[in-house]
């Protein structure tokens, strides 16, 4: 009991601390001062009157929302004896795997630097700063030579790493049993079965109408913060900028839905790479921000800096996390805020190795388990012809289906991610897509043919697909 109370007061203290630095706090303070002019606010009952004033004017609701959104990302209280890295990832072998994956990425980034003899970061000469500022709204028209740059990694490289994950304490044994997992992911993690998923997604039941949300919630805009990031982009040239450029050119610029927003993507992603507030999410991300050292001081911790400043190295397809949100916001700074929030709450889990139920490893396992358990014939058939289903669905899940579904459908899906505060629905949808095309897939005899059957998902209707898979296909 005592423990719980002290936990609670700790959480309250931390949330108060966090909110004190926010725009909302400043606004509340201003409102409180201004309210003193009002007749109904009396000195005798100042505290109560101001509380009442906040209630009537709707500020209380805004505060509640802010507290709720903090609680949402706040990690569950852990055992007092557990070291902080357990918050990032409790399993040692996962931590190790993530660590060596990070080393690989950083090495690849560094060797690109050396090969191209380009510094990781440099200050832009004043002339270039001016030039960039002038073309801020049309960076897409700029055609720098990016032929030598290559994405640091692509989803399929990452999949290879996940396939090779093993738990050293787990003895699989030689004998095959019905429990044997025949998919590519070979680590024992607890994933939900259909009855559990039904319970979890009970609102998706067949008799429940599924709507989109028409009005977007009012995110208090923070233009100033965005402008600071923009200044930072103007002043400094980073190697990751070229990677972002290259990625946008390779993906969104060629996309029927998103090419229109090319410039918004630069405006969001370049600022994102400078946003040190993103570093906060590494407290609960199994990944750690890469470090770089001031020239000549390699290995000296006091000269270490995070690189890029937000600690996130973009990979092939990264810009697709932003692209669908362009349909929702006309102003880049609003778009930016929403994207950052989506990233630090959800998307980071799609390219970090962890045991979290929303982490990509669990999603892969959930997907494979669903197929193997509920569509065994399809699963075995595809496996026999060398078309392991995960080889096809992995890229969908890593990108949260962005670039695969029609935008309206994608937004319906992302609404559910937010609503259920979980990415598990991605794995369910991936399995549902296989179920939906099962008849055609049973006829194919090669990986290429299976890929062809699943090449175009733009005609799919997400909600009925999920509903039917969860509540009508298997019992």
């Amino acid at each position: 009991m005592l423990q719980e109370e002290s936990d609670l007061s700790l959480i309250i203290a931390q949330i108060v601390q966090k909110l004190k630095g926010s725009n909302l706090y400043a606004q509340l303070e201003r409102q409180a001062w201004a309210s003193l002019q009002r007749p109904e606010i009396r000195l005798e009952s100042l505290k109560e009157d101001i509380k009442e004033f906040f209630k009537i004017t709707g500020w209380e609701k805004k505060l509640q929302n802010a507290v709720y959104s903090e609680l949402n990302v706040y990690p569950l209280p852990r055992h007092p004896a557990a070291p902080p890295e357990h918050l990032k990832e409790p399993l040692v072998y996962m931590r190790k795997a993530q660590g060596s994956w990070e080393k690989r990425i950083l090495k690849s980034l560094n060797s690109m630097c050396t090969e191209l003899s380009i510094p990781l970061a440099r200050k832009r000469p004043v002339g270039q700063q001016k030039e960039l500022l002038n073309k801020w709204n049309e960076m897409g028209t700029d055609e720098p030579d990016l032929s030598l740059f290559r994405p640091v990694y692509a989803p399929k490289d990452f999949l290879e790493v996940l396939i090779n994950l093993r738990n050293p304490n787990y003895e699989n044994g030689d004998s095959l049993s019905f429990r044997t997992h025949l998919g590519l992911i070979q680590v024992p993690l607890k994933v939900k079965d259909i009855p559990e998923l039904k319970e979890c997604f009970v609102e998706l039941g067949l008799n429940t109408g599924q709507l989109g949300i028409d009005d977007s919630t009012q995110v208090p805009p923070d233009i100033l913060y965005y402008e600071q990031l923009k200044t930072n982009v103007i002043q400094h040239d980073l190697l990751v900028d070229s990677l972002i450029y290259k990625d946008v050119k390779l993906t969104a610029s060629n996309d029927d839905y998103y090419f229109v927003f090319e410039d918004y993507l630069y405006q969001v992603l370049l600022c994102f790479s400078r946003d040190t507030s993103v570093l906060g999410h590494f407290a609960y991300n199994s990944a750690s921000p890469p470090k770089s050292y001031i020239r000549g001081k390699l290995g000296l911790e006091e000269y270490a800096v995070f690189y890029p400043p937000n600690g996130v190295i973009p990979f092939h397809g990264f810009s697709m996390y932003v692209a669908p949100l362009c349909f929702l916001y006309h102003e880049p700074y609003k778009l930016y805020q929403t994207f950052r929030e989506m990233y630090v709450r959800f998307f980071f889990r799609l390219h970090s190795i962890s045991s979290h139920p929303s982490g990509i490893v669990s999603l892969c396992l959930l997907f494979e388990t669903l197929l193997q358990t509920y569509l065994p014939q399809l699963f075995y058939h595809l496996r026999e012809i060398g078309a392991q289903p995960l080889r096809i669905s992995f890229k969908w899940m890593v990108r949260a289906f962005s670039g695969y579904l029609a935008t309206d459908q994608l937004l319906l899906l992302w609404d559910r991610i937010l609503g259920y505060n979980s990415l598990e629905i991605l794995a369910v949808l991936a399995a549902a897509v296989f179920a939906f095309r099962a008849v055609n897939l049973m006829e194919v005899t090669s990986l290429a043919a299976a890929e062809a059957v699943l090449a175009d998902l733009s005609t799919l209707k997400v909600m009925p697909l999920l509903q039917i898979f969860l509540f009508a296909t298997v019992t």
Partner: protein
Amino acid sequence: MAGKVKWVTDIEKSVLINNFEKRGWVQVTESEDWNFYWMSVQTIRNVFSVETGYRLSDDQIVNHFPNHYELTRKDLMVKNIKRYRKELEKEGSPLAEKDENGKYLYLDFVPVTYMLPADYNLFVEEFRKNPSSTWIMKPCGKAQGKGIFLINRLSQIKKWSRDSKTSSFVSQSTKEAYVISLYINNPLLIGGRKFDLRLYVLVSTYRPLRCYMYKLGFCRFCTVKYTPSTSELDNMFVHLTNVAIQKHGEDYNHIHGGKWTVSNLRLYLESTRGREVTSKLFDEIHWIIVQSLKAVAPVMNNDKHCFECYGYDIIIDDKLKPWLIEVNASPSLTSSTANDRILKYNLINDTLNIAVPNGEIPDCKWNKSPPREVLGHYEILYDEELAQGDGAERELRSRPGQTPGPKGGRSRDTGRTVLTTWK
């Protein structure tokens, strides 16, 4: 019906030929007997010219109306719309109602336009009222963005008229008329870029008017950022969205071709501006298309052998008001991307299903009222016969003088095809 349709075309496009072949139609030459001729606008002129005196028989169909130019030539379209508005005004129609500035409330959908050189003095008068305005000069008879330029000073137009008089090369075409239109300098921008809408509209008869809207239109985007600054007036890539022009730009992308579907536009507008204003915008777009067709219907030679698929070009301004820019009689059937090919193949397929029912040998005396199932991606935009029946009933119920305006009677998202019932 016995026999296969014999077809001719002078436009060698695979989207056409594949569609003809799919129906098992037989290709013949122009000099043989034919049932179906998909022809260019040059050919239609000859077919219906007084000299050739060509008589079409009942089993022959062509894809243009003889005097389609009443709608598809920029100067004539404006002339017809101006005349239509005046007539409605004279009749005291509520549609011709004006606001306090003398602007039509429901019929102000074409940018202010003058013919040059004929209306030069009128133009100068208008220009002087608002000397900072930008105007766009277009040759009346050309398409695909040819011969278009922008001006924002009177001296430029004086120079143009001097040049075209002195140059010997132009002398033969001095009779070439231009239209000068007020340039929409506050276009709606998406992702900072300007675009226009290309919508396909099929007319099967003008009297009574029966027209269909193709649901799969698209937005055409400029590859270069839009800037209203006058220093960029010469950079046509900023201002013109014609694919024929944009294809020469360095940034032209051959995967999407700068084309964005209308459903993308709708989703974007619903999310950023709201559902209601978006529906209003699309209703207004349908409204101006119907009004433009009504404007030309009385002068159109409603030949029973004809149908026509028009390419409507519409620009939306930043207040979400749509403007009719021009109508094309031969919308491009060139496919710039894979999706484009699919779209145009389907467009022709659906067009043929309506124009040549069942792919059988045509009989131009049929009542041209196909069943719902064959409409494909088309939806009925306006059916005068139905509207009149419906309208008479409506008039009894509604107060006199109440405008059926652009908000009128379309419910959407109900899953059933809804008829437009404006009068």
